[in-house]
């Protein structure tokens, strides 16, 4: 049971329940698609989900901007410069992530 087979089996069995449950929920949602009450409920649930996401975003921003209880000025300057650059040049997000990571290594963002 050890080794790669273990890894593969464990990962697949972790995702199977998700797929089954989401398929069932999807079918049910499709059935009630035109129902006014369901539509209204979903509208308000979306707001709550948005608030949820917003809070985890704030905690992620906090994690990047604050290091050892100090403001991480390197990261802040990088974010500002990068957002100005992104308005002018369009780059794909995969390239952007690796580019930013290499900049992070070069300028030692964690110190």
């Amino acid at each position, binding site marked *: 049971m050890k080794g790669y087979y273990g890894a593969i089996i464990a990962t697949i069995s972790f995702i199977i329940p998700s797929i089954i449950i989401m398929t069932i929920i999807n079918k049910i949602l499709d059935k009630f698609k035109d129902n006014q009450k369901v539509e209204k409920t979903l509208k308000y649930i979306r707001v709550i989900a948005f608030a949820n996401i917003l809070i985890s975003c704030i905690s992620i*921003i906090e994690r990047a901007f604050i290091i050892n209880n100090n403001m991480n000025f390197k990261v802040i300057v990088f974010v500002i410069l990068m957002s100005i650059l992104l308005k002018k040049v369009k780059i794909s*997000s995969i390239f952007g992530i690796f580019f930013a*990571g290499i900049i992070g290594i070069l300028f030692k963002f964690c110190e």
Partner: protein
Amino acid sequence: MKLLEIFYIFSLLGIQMIGNVATMVPVFEKELINKRKLITKNELLDSITIGRCGPGAAIINTVSFLGNRIHGILGAVFATLGFIFFPFIIIILISFFINGFLESVVIKNFFTGALSFMIILIIKSMIDFAKMSLTDRNTMVIFIITLIILL
């Protein structure tokens, strides 16, 4: 839409998975809504909502819901498998030299850099979603109450 194409699209999304569901919102938005037009914004918000409610990992639920929307149950299978494909291989590779990997300063610097790029995308898509979900007074009131409870 072929199943292998779904696998390919979601495997590209899987490489960009840094952080949690929130950091994936801008990436999904860019790739699935703006570029390929496979889903609508409302569907994305629904999938994140339902993914968080359901049992299991939130991001896996979200991805299988999206796959379902695109191409039924087989779409869900291929989307989820595609999404975990590269992270799986990367983790297997890392397991060879796990000792000292997470403590490595170089790796920490890399992820801080990558995260700071994600922040730009996150802020953009948060503004987008705020415009879309906060449409009238009722939604504003619910939003503020939820924020107060969660903070």
